[in-house]
Structure formats: structure tokens, C-alpha cells
């Protein structure tokens, strides 16, 4: 096949040797990369959850109570005999292959540190199988309903956590006043004027809002007594969330039947958080997280109830039940549990000199606050610069030459090492502008500058990829440049701009060098109280722990930190990707 030979067909044969060699070389390159990454992730996960200390009995218990029912649910929702057989074969055959292969390598070649064949099976066979059945099942009505509900639960909780963390640095009494006297009246004015079609709703609402803001800042100086944080959150977040969720349901469903239900459950969720507020979860955060989770779920349930895949809604119960059953079996039989590092306590407590008490909470809060600021800053600046360079700046003449110069420099800036940006941040923001050493503001501005070239370049690509046909069509309709940018270019380029910003944010959240340069603390013991206070970020804390002499820190605690960092990154990217896909679908 590969070499040219004479055959009796009379056509001869064409050599594909070089093409075939190239194909396998490229395959090899990608496989090597993926395997290196997979090996790294497996070890980090094994360390973070202490899986190397897990007994086979513990693994088997949870495999039977959690993994097997989950796969069973997915296969039931797919209900395709051939597929079920294939999955069973993969699970069974994979078991034999992994056990035999692993033992063979250990006895004949080298011993593999930190892994047993059971854990290898978990990662090499069980995880891919779970991923593939999840993927296929999520396309069936039954599975889609279940995964949709799980997704809303997890997403709502994550969103609630993010909002709760953002509110740590906001002055709650001031927010209470601003919401009551500014946001609420402004929203009311906007709704009223736009429904009655009188005047300019946006302008009037802005005016009212600004007036309210002024009044609130004055009142904040005078008033001394405020409701508790929990009540403030209930009034300013849970109530509007309930109203918004109810409005969403009427908008999509048309019927007013479910509205009251959604609103009431959301409020109950917020109130429930109030009641459940415990030491692990402050009351205020409980209200936000509860309301966000319940609102997202309630809206979804109202829509899914009429669908055929109603039984799929049992999935979250199945997962929770499986986890509880596993725990019960482990408890009653007396199976030793592995020494886990990534636990709820790890996420909610402060760093400590003892590995067993070490926590990442202040660093997680610091990272999330900084990333939120970076996201807003770099998106606004990046999109602004990109739109100017692509849509407004002339291509010819002096301006054109200047634009080209800027263009080349942006590309070069993207390649400047992050330490240099750290120096810039130190000199410009910390020293010259006096934003303080190691404060959250300085860090956010420095990281925004660091990723600005990437966001600008990717936003430019997005603007450039908007077909010129559309611009021409808009201009030919008598649109001004601004109208064309606003109505045609920005909506069309938005998904691409978001993708670029997401990727850049991924880089920003993991940066350590610039944070060291601007004097960020490696370890702080309480969450930052505001954007002007000192903070630590996840990569800084992980970096500090990696230098501790105790092995527990270097393996367990650091691994748990890395997994947390990855999870926060994934959650952030996931949210942004969902928003982006929504926007793409709307087009």
C-alpha cells in the first residue's frame, strides 16, 4: 500500500508513505502530551483525596454504591442494548487488562509509586466510561432532565458561593442603603416609564439611581443601626432573585400557575439558609447560596415537569443516596477511610502550621475577588481597544502607521514575561499611584495589564471574523458607525471575545510571579475585608506550602490546593462557556 508497485489494475498506485508517517507522528505527539497531562492530574487527585491510603474495600464500597448505580441510570436512560453490552465489556475487560497489566509492569519492570491497580482502574477505565455514558445519556430526554437538574443545583450553588464571596469585600450596610434608595427606585422608574412609553427610561432611571446613591452615601454617615447581614441579603438578593425567577417563568412558560411556586420556594431557600446558618457557613452566605441554588432549580423544575424525561429528575437523589449508603456501609462494617486532604473543612478554614488543620479559605476568597476585578477590567479594556483598532482607526496615512505600530507592540507585549508586569505593577500601581503593596486592587490591575494583550488580540480576531457583508449591509441601510458596531459587530463578535477573555483569565488565576513582585502575602489568616486590604491568592499559598519541610504539606495539602485551583478555574470557564453558547444559540 505504501510503496509504488505495479498492479494489474492498470492504474498503478500512488505512494502515501510520507503522509502516513506524518499522520502517525502527529498522533504520537498529541498522545504524549495528553498522557503527560493525564499522569500529572491523576497523581494530584490521588494525593488530594488521599487515595493511595484508601483500602480496596473502601474503593469497592463506593464503586458499588455510587459509580455502578450512576452508570446504570445512564444506561437505563439510553436503553440501547448494544451500547450497554459495549459498556459492560469495557468495565469487565478493563478490569482484567488493568489488573494483569499493572501487576505485570510492577513485577517485571518497575514498581509504580503511589498507585495500586484498583486506583489505576478507577482512572483509566471507570472515569472514561463514566464520562462517555454521561455524554451519551445527556442527549436522551431522561438523562438530559437529570443532568440538567444536577447542573442547576451545582451551578446555582457555585454562583451563590461566588456572590457570597464577592459580598465579603462590599460594605453591607452601604449596599443595603444603595439597594433600597438607588437600585430599587431606579428599576421601578425604568419598568414604569418603558411600559408606559414615556420619556427616556434609561436616562431617567440612571438619574434616579445616582440620586439614590448620593442619598445612601450621606445616610451611611448618619445612620448607626442596620439589619443583620442575613436580613440584608434576604431583602437585597433573595427577594429580587425570587421576583426575577418568577418573571423568567412567566416569560418562558406563559402560565402564571408556576410563578407563585417559584417565588415562594426561592424565598424559602433564602430563609432556609438563614435558619441553617451555622459556624461552617455564615448566615449571610447561607441566604445567598440557598436562594441562588433554589431559584435555579425551581425555574428548571417548572420547565422540566412537562417534559417526558420526568423520571430523570431522580438522578440527584440517586447520587446523594449512593453517597449516603456508601458512608453508612463504611461506618457499620468498619472499613478504614482514607486520609483526605480536600475536605469541606479545608475550604472553609484558614492556613495553619499543622497540615491537618491547614485551609485555603482566605486564598480562595482572594483569588476569586481578584479574578472578578480582572475579568471586568480586561474585558472592558480589551474589547474597547479591539473595537477601536478594528472599526475606527484608519488603515492609511499617519493614523494607519500609528495603528500598525500599536498592533506590533501589542503582539510583543503578549510575550513579555510576567515578572516584568509584576515590576510594572509595583512601580506604577503600588508606588506611583499609591494603591498599596500587596493589595487586591494592585494585584487586579497588574494581572489585567498582564492579560490585556491576549484579550485585545483575541477580541480583534473576533471583530475581524465578523463578515464584512454584514457591515456593508448595515452601512447601506443608513446606519452610523456606532449603530453598526452596536447592532451588528459586537453581538456577532461577542462569543469570540468571551472565549479569548476566558482563556486569558485562566492564565491570570494561576500567575504567581507578578503577585510576588507587587508584595502579595504568601499566607494570610483571614479573608480580605475589602479591595484595599492585603490578600493572598491560591497560587501564592500553594507556592508557600510547597516549600514547607513536612511531607504532608508538600504532598497532601499542596495537591488539595492544586485541585481546588483547577476546580475554581473549571467552574469559571464552564460558566463563561455556557454564557457564550447561549449567546451563539440566540443568533
Amino acid at each position, binding site marked *: 500500500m505504501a510503496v509504488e508497485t505495479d498492479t494489474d489494475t492498470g492504474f498503478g498506485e500512488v505512494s502515501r508513505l510520507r503522509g502516513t508517517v506524518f499522520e502517525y507522528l502527529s498522533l504520537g505527539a498529541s498522545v504524549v502530551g495528553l498522557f503527560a497531562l493525564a499522569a500529572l492530574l491523576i497523581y494530584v487527585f490521588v494525593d488530594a483525596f488521599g487515595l493511595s491510603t484508601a483500602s480496596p474495600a473502601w474503593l469497592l464500597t463506593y464503586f458499588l454504591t455510587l459509580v455502578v448505580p450512576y452508570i446504570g441510570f445512564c444506561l437505563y436512560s439510553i436503553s440501547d442494548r448494544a451500547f450497554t453490552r459495549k459498556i459492560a465489556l469495557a468495565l469487565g475487560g478493563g478490569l482484567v487488562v488493568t489488573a494483569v497489566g499493572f501487576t505485570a509492569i510492577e513485577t517485571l519492570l518497575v514498581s509504580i509509586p503511589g498507585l495500586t491497580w484498583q486506583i489505576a482502574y478507577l482512572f483509566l477505565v471507570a472515569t472514561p466510561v463514566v464520562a462517555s455514558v454521561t455524554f451519551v445519556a445527556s442527549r436522551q430526554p431522561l438523562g438530559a432532565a437529570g443532568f440538567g437538574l444536577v447542573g442547576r443545583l451545582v451551578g446555582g450553588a457555585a454562583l451563590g458561593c461566588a456572590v457570597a464571596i464577592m459580598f465579603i469585600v462590599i460594605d453591607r450596610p452601604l449596599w443595603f442603603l444603595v439597594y433600597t434608595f438607588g437600585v430599587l427606585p431606579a428599576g421601578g422608574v425604568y419598568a414604569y416609564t418603558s411600559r408606559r412609553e414615556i420619556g427616556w427610561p434609561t436616562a431617567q432611571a440612571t438619574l434616579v439611581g445616582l440620586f439614590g446613591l448620593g442619598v445612601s452615601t450621606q445616610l451611611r454617615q448618619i445612620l448607626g443601626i442596620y439589619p443583620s447581614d442575613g436580613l440584608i441579603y434576604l431583602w437585597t438578593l433573595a427577594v429580587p432573585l425570587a421576583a426575577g425567577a418568577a418573571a423568567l417563568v412567566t416569560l418562558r412558560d406563559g402560565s402564571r400557575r408556576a410563578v407563585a411556586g417559584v417565588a415562594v420556594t426561592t424565598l424559602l431557600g433564602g430563609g432556609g439558609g438563614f435558619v441553617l446558618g451555622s459556624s461552617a457557613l455564615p448566615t449571610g452566605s447561607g441566604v445567598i447560596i440557598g436562594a441562588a441554588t433554589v431559584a435555579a432549580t425551581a425555574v428548571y423544575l417548572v420547565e422540566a415537569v412537562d417534559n417526558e424525561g420526568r423520571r430523570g429528575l431522580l438522578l440527584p437523589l440517586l447520587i446523594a443516596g449512593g453517597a449516603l449508603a456508601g458512608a453508612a456501609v463504611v461506618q457499620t462494617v468498619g472499613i478504614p477511610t482514607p486520609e483526605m486532604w480536600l475536605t469541606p473543612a479545608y475550604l472553609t478554614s484558614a492556613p495553619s502550621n499543622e497540615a491537618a488543620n491547614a485551609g485555603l479559605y482566605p486564598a480562595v476568597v482572594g483569588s476569586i475577588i481578584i479574578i472578578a476585578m480582572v475579568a471586568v477590567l480586561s474585558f472592558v479594556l480589551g474589547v474597547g481597544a479591539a473595537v477601536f483598532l478594528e472599526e475606527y482607526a484608519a488603515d492609511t496615512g499617519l493614523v494607519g502607521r500609528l495603528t500598525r505600530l500599536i498592533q506590533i507592540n501589542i503582539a510583543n507585549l503578549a510575550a513579555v514575561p510576567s515578572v516584568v508586569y509584576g515590576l510594572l505593577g509595583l512601580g506604577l500601581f503600588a508606588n506611583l499611584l499609591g494603591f498599596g503593596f500587596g493589595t487586591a486592587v494592585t494585584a487586579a490591575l497588574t494581572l489585567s495589564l498582564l492579560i490585556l494583550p491576549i484579550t485585545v488580540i483575541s477580541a480583534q480576531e473576533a471583530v475581524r471574523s465578523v463578515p464584512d*457583508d*454584514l457591515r456593508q449591509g*448595515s452601512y*447601506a441601510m443608513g446606519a*452610523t458607525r456606532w449603530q453598526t458596531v452596536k*447592532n451588528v459587530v459586537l453581538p456577532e463578535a461577542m462569543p469570540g471575545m468571551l472565549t479569548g477573555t476566558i482563556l486569558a483569565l485562566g492564565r491570570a488565576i494561576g500567575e504567581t510571579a507578578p503577585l510576588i513582585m507587587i508584595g502579595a502575602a504568601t499566607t494570610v489568616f483571614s479573608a480580605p475585608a475589602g479591595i484595599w486590604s492585603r490578600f493572598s491568592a491560591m497560587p501564592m499559598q500553594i507556592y508557600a506550602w510547597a516549600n514547607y519541610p513536612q511531607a504532608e504539606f508538600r504532598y497532601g495539602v499542596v495537591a488539595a490546593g492544586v485541585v481546588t485551583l483547577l476546580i475554581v478555574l473549571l467552574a469559571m470557564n464552564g460558566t463563561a462557556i455556557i454564557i457564550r453558547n447561549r449567546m451563539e444559540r440566540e443568533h
Partner: protein
Amino acid sequence: MSQNESTIDSESESLITTDVQPDTTAESASSATTIVETEQLNVYYGDDQALDDVSIAIPENQVTALIGPSGCGKSTFLRCLNRMNDLIDIARIDGTVTLRGIDIYDDAVDPVALRRKIGMVFQKPNPFPKSIYDNVAYGLKVQGKEITDERIEEALRSAALWDEVKDQLDQSGLELSGGQQQRLCIARAIAPDPDIVLMDEPTSALDPVAASKIEDLIDELVEDYTVIIVTHNMQQAARISDQTAVFLTGGELVEYDDTTTIFENPADDRVEDYITGKFG
């Protein structure tokens, strides 16, 4: 920018933001019939000359076809009429173009306001990635005119598309077939009620059935609008146009006359060679 906005807000009927006297000679020469007139129009893209001394008078409420081989400047000419060439940095325009006696390249003419009087349909259907309704409403929206369902329906009916899409106005314009998309673009162009509709090879990307629908549509449009159409298809020009202008390579307008004269008894030998297929 602020000047543009003020023109929108006042919804003034005039293109001109300051007072300019219409060119009286042009008006008297063409009083009732001529709507667009060019004199010695030259267009350069950098050092390349795209149009060479084109002088033409286009009558109102008729179909004028511009034909000629590729690269002869037909589209450039069309884009001069609504100043779309202004958007190309390297384009330079010489000579005069008058619309109802007003020089549209006068400094006082706002090109955005001018384009609001002139609809344009492009070679490739280019509906916006919005709903059918929003596509048709786009011109009304950017021009600050009132958007009413009646107006949208009227535009879609004039574009012979209403019966096919009346139940799916919320659907994306991109979900329509190519021919429907092009008719949607025509509906979009005529919704703000322009004086002239420019069409740049509107059927060249369409199949013959869709193309013939557009041709029928042009026949009806000409009752209300002046249509200027660029086409590669000589049969099409012969079928639908009242006047035909033949451009040849180098941006030269070789002959301009009644369509019947051009196709049956052209004065210029090169035109005869071109339309009988001997070159081009």
C-alpha cells in the same frame, strides 16, 4: 457623529445639513425623469483607475441595468451612488454625482443621511443574524423611524416573502433558503421607503427558480422605486430592464441606451461583440 445623530432625530427629509442650492442646470435638463446623474465620474483605488469619465443620466421609476465583463467597474459605479466607496480608505472619487439635482459629494451632504434614501441589495444574501422581523425592522430602527407590524408586513409583502414567513417572524433570517434570504434583504432595503434601490448582481448566487422570483419582484418594485441593477446575465438584463448601460474593461461606459436598442441595434461594435458572446 453628533451631526449624524441630529439628522436622525429631526427626521429631516433633506440630505443636506446646511443650505446648498440645487444645481439648476441639471434639474432643468432632466426635470421630470432623471433621478441620478453623473458627470465625468472617475474613481481610483490607489493608483488603479476603476471608472473612467462616466457620464450617465438614470431615469426615475425605471429599471436600469449595468452590464459588462468582470472588473469593468459596474459595482464601483453602483457603490458611488450611495457613497459606499467612502468606506474604502484608498478610494478617490472625481467628478459629480447628483441625486435629484443635488451633488451628493458636496461637503454638506452627510453620507449616512444619503444612504437612508437609497436601499442596497448585495450579490451574496447578507441577512443579519437576527430574527426575520428584526432584519426588516433594522433600517427603521437605525433611522429612528417608528417600527410597526404593518410596516414590516408591507415590506415583506412587497418583497413577495410575506406568505412564506408570516408564521415564523421570530426565526433567524439565516434559517431561510438562499432565495428567501435575498428577498428578505430586499424587504430590508425597501422597509424604510427609499427613493432608489441599488442591486449588485442580486441573483448570481441563486438558483434559476429563486432568480426568476427576484426578477418578477423587480418588475413590481419599479412601480414605486427606481431600480439600478448590476448583472452578469445578459438575458436577465434584456428581460427586466428599461435602460442598459454597457461598461467595458478599464471602467469605461461604452454605450447607454434603451435596452431594446442595446440588444437589437447597438451602435458600438464592441458592445455587439460583448452581447453576442464574442468576448467577455
